[in-house]
C-alpha cells in the first residue's frame, strides 16, 4: 500500500465524521480518494472537483506568500459551512489532501452551535507520521 492510500485509510479510521478524503495533484486532479461507505455525498462530485481546482491554485498562492513573508510554513485551510467543513492541506510539494467533514451541530447543545471542531492537530500529526516513513 502506498503512503497516500495509508494517509487516507488512517484519516478515515481516526474520525467517523470525515465523509470523503481525496489526494490530488497541484492542478487539483483527483489521484486517490476514499468515501465513507455509510454516507451519501452532500455535494455533487463535479462541485467538489471545481473546489479542488480553486483550492490547488489558492495553495500555490499561499505557498508563494509564505516564501515572501515571515508567515512560517502554510499548514491547512478550512472552509466551514453550516453542514460541512472542507479542509485542505499540502502533504508534500506535489500533493494536496482534501477532506469533507460532517459539521452538523450536536443536538444537545444549549447555545447556538456553529458546528463541530475539526481536530487539525491530530490530522496534521497523521500526515507528519506517514511522511516520516518516506
Amino acid at each position, binding site marked *: 500500500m502506498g503512503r497516500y492510500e495509508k494517509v487516507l485509510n488512517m484519516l478515515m479510521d481516526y474520525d467517523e465524521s470525515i465523509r470523503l478524503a481525496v489526494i490530488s495533484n497541484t492542478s487539483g486532479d483527483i489521484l486517490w480518494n476514499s468515501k465513507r461507505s455509510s454516507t451519501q455525498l*452532500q*455535494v*455533487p462530485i463535479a*462541485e467538489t472537483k*471545481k*473546489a479542488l481546482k*480553486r483550492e490547488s491554485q*489558492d495553495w500555490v*498562492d*499561499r505557498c508563494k*506568500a*509564505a516564501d*515572501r*513573508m*515571515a*508567515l*512560517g*510554513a*502554510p*499548514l*491547512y*485551510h*478550512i*472552509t*466551514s*459551512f*453550516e*453542514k*460541512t467543513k472542507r479542509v485542505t492541506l499540502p502533504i508534500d510539494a506535489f500533493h494536496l489532501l482534501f477532506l469533507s467533514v460532517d459539521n452538523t451541530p450536536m443536538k444537545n447543545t444549549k447555545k*447556538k*452551535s*456553529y*458546528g463541530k*471542531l475539526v481536530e*487539525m*492537530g491530530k490530522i*496534521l*500529526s497523521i500526515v*507528519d507520521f506517514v511522511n516520516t516513513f518516506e
Partner: protein
Amino acid sequence: MDKYEKLLDMVMDFDETVRFAAVTDENGEILWNSQRTGLKNIVPVSETKQTILRALHAWRDNAGVKKNIGSGLYSIASYEKIKRITVPLDNGRLLFCSVDNEPLKTAINRRKSYGHLANMGKILSIVDFIKSQK
C-alpha cells in the same frame, strides 16, 4: 459609530491574539480596519488585499453549494505564525482577521504544537450580534 466599527472593536477586545481586523466591501476595498497597538505588521497591506480578493472570489464560488451544505460560516488559512480568518457578512462584505498562531511556550505536553485554536464560536457569535443591530 457604524456597526462594523463596533464589530472590529468587539473582535479586538475579545481576543488579544487578534493582530489586525478589517471589514471590506464586495470589491475587496478595506472600509474599516483596526490594528493592535504595539504590534508590527508581518504582512504588508498590499498582500492582505490580495488575500482578501482571493477569499471573496472563493466565497462567491462557494455560493453554488449553499443548497447542498448550507451557508458559508468562515474560512481559516493557518500558517505556523499566523491564522488568516475570513467571515462573510451581509451585502457581500467580509470580515478579515489576522490572528497570532505562535505555539504557547508554556505548553506542558511534549507533542509538536500546530498553534493556537481560533475561537470561531465566539467570533461568529459577535458577528451574529452585530448583524442583528440596525
